[in-house]
């Protein structure tokens, strides 16, 4: 009898624990608000002072593919981390849909000479930590941007010693040398402002997990490995967002992000598989927001390694590559053939004549170079696109008598080999953060230690000249010349201009495609 009672009690305990697991998860973590309803359902409310009816939503749920290591804006390169950061941080100026600069934290700005930018700041702006946004914060932020290895390509020009605050609401930004892309950089998600007081007290790591900005939402909770919770900032200086809070979930599997979007679990999903694009575009409750990105892919050739230091060999590889077929097979409509080393939206883009696919010419060039039995070691990491490119190239180059030896490593090893100059040939891309050659031609400066290693001072001269030229026409001419020069040298073979896309529920409006793939989430409206 005693044992029977014990058995019953054990069973009761077992079921209680099982039930407890569920209820505990619910009460401790909390279901992302709005997730129980299809993302399209929302309440309507008319805001004061607006003639049109504004639709608001309790909670915006966004799915990104990885958890940010930090939300400190100058401490990482993780594009998925910049998406939630648009909710909390703001820059001095912003660019509107027509490409014009508009005020944000700055109300006025003007270059007094080539190396001096005077900026007048908006008054009455507060950080999420309660402190006022002042010129000291701007000077401090610019100093961090200049020093960080992640942002120095855009802000390395800043002369931090002579950049000063002139009162609480005016900043004199001094440059070490003229830099034409400065306004573009300041208007980008890389140029956001942080709170000096909090950064100094919390440190870089602490700030990265506090994410104190001046934006309309503030970070409320960071659930490790799962999600970020944002709530509206009551003291925000501008118009509040059309949603009262936001949840950014980390869903690693691309298929799971698509399913969450389709089943109404999330309102927005990023980094989707291109094979899912059509399904999302044609979904009854979903839409695909897509366009041409600023991403250019290319075959990188190590120009310092024999036999690739011979221009004829590089030219032979170019002739042996049928770029049209390669792009069609690998991307299946998610990219177009690259006819330049920068995407068409970048200043200085020039459509170059495409090198025809000519196997015989490739063989001739190799013979002329005295190279027989060329075996190309193609370095790649575990990436479906890169591996598909390698497979197609193996067949194409094989026709020209060039063997392809695929060396697949993990990403960390690949990066280390690339930086050590060990890679021979590889498939790479540059995703420009701003539509400017400074960001689009990031692999070309001589200071870069990747495996390209062209060691060509002419390129560096063009880059320096172009980045310091304020006159638009003259600047375009410089970069056009540089593109022609690239076309003659065969240092790399441009392959594709990738398209970008993200999925959204049909109720979302006012969110165009951003070529940087980092859309400003605060502008989202609902219908």
């Amino acid at each position: 009898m005693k044992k029977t009672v014990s058995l019953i009690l054990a069973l009761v305990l077992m079921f209680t624990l099982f039930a407890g697991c569920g209820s505990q998860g619910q009460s401790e973590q909390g279901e992302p608000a709005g997730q129980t309803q299809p993302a399209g359902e929302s309440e309507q409310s008319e805001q004061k002072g607006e003639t049109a009816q504004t639709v608001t939503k309790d909670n915006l749920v966004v799915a990104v593919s990885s958890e940010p290591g930090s939300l400190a804006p100058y401490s990482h390169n993780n594009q998925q981390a910049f998406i939630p950061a648009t909710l909390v941080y703001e820059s001095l100026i912003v660019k509107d849909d027509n490409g014009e600069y508009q005020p944000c934290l700055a109300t006025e700005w003007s270059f007094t000479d080539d190396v001096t930018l005077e900026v007048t700041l908006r008054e009455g702006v507060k950080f999420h930590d309660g402190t006022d946004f002042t010129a000291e914060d701007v000077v401090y932020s610019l100093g961090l941007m200049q020093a960080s290895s992640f942002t120095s390509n855009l802000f390395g020009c800043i002369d931090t010693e002579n950049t000063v605050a002139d009162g609480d609401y005016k900043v004199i930004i001094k440059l070490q040398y003229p830099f034409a892309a400065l306004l573009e950089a300041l208007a980008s998600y890389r140029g956001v402002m942080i709170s000096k007081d909090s950064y100094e007290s919390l440190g870089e790591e602490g700030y990265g997990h506090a994410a104190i900005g001046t934006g309309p939402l503030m970070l409320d909770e960071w659930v490790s490995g799962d999600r970020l919770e944002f709530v509206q900032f009551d003291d925000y200086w501008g118009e509040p967002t059309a949603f009262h809070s936001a949840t950014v979930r980390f869903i690693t599997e691309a298929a799971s992000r698509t399913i969450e979007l389709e089943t109404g679990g999330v309102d927005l999903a990023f980094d989707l598989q291109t094979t899912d694009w059509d399904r999302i575009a044609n979904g009854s409750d979903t839409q695909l927001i897509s366009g041409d990105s600023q991403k250019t892919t290319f075959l990188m050739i190590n120009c310092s390694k024999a036999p690739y230091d011979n221009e004829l060999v590089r030219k032979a590889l170019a002739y042996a590559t049928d770029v049209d077929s390669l792009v069609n097979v690998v991307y299946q409509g998610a990219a177009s053939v690259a006819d330049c080393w920068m995407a068409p939206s970048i200043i200085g883009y020039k459509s170059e004549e495409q090198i025809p696919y000519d196997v015989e010419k490739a063989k001739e060039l190799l013979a002329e170079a005295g190279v027989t039995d060329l075996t190309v070691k193609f370095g790649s990491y575990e990436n479906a696109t890169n591996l598909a490119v390698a497979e197609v190239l193996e067949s194409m180059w094989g026709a020209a008598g060039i063997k392809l030896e695929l060396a697949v490593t993990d990403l960390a090893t690949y990066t280390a080999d690339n930086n050590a100059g060990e890679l021979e040939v590889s498939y790479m891309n540059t995703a420009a953060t701003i539509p400017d050659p400074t960001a689009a031609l990031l692999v070309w400066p001589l200071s870069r230690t990747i495996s390209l290693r062209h060691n060509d001072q002419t390129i560096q001269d063009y880059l320096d000249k172009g980045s310091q030229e304020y006159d638009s026409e003259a600047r375009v001419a410089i970069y056009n010349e540089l593109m022609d020069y690239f076309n003659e040298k065969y240092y790399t073979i441009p392959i594709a201009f990738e398209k970008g896309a993200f999925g959204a529920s049909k109720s979302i409006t006012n969110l165009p495609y951003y070529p940087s793939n980092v859309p400003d989430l605060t502008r989202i409206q609902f219908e």
Partner: protein
Amino acid sequence: MSKFIIKRILVMIPVLLGVTFVIFTMMYFTDGNPAQLILGDMATEEQIHELEEEMGLNDPFFTRYLNYLSDLLHGDLGTSYVTGQPVAKEIMDRLPVTVRISFCCMIFAVAVGIPAGILSAVKQYSILDNLSMVLALVGISLPNFWLALMLVLVFSVGLGLLPPSGLYGFKYYILPVVSISASAVATITRMTRSSMLEVIRADYIRTARAKGQSENVVIFRHALLNALIPIITVVGLQFATTLSGTVVNEQIFAIPGLGKLMVDAIKARNYPVVQGGVFVLAFIFSILNLVIDLIYAFVDPRIRSQYVRKKNKRQAETDNRKEVPA
């Protein structure tokens, strides 16, 4: 009994030391530069070298290993290269989720597997037996990530009954638990069946029936209790497997567990998190083995009596020595 526990705990020390040495060595000889990963592609060689020095990455192998052990003894598992957070905190954020999922999986597996196994054994060669054995075979054979995807397609996308990912309430647990525990359910069912079949043919069961005991008492009191030892072993092993083996399903269901943390850390060459995670898992495995041994003693009086007998024997030997005249 207490001496047995202390002895087992002491044995854990060389085991854990071995684990730290093996994992540290593996990470040491793995390609990839953490300093480069932390600073990004644009970092200059000087910046990278400076950070390598700061992180002690240029120190000799044994210096780094001893430093690691020294920190470990002080309860410091290091700092994550990616987030800058203490590794112990990162692990403690994730471990409860993995433990909770594993615990739910084992409760589900036990609650389904043992009754199914008993039923199969009692009704041997019946339709029920054949059905449960076929299902068990399917459960063992199906990769759990495939099952997870199928369950999501049917119950989330198709029927819209259950959420496809996340872990925010009871209904969110159903698909992960069912998919992860499928093979555990199958294994427990098969083990229960074979163990019960062995026991119900024993003489003492015939005796119990001859005494006029009801069938329920015979099955649950006499047969099941005696068949429990191998089942407990399997449950323990399955629990350990579930704790460390849910990585793929954690990815599919976006569960913020320890497995996902470690896979991300391996990809990012985040050595401290990998080392810390493996150490914590090894520690849990050791504790789990000890607990299983203790449960044996609790369930089976024969094993319990072995511990007590050893103690009594030692006591008797001591008493005998004391009685020897000087």
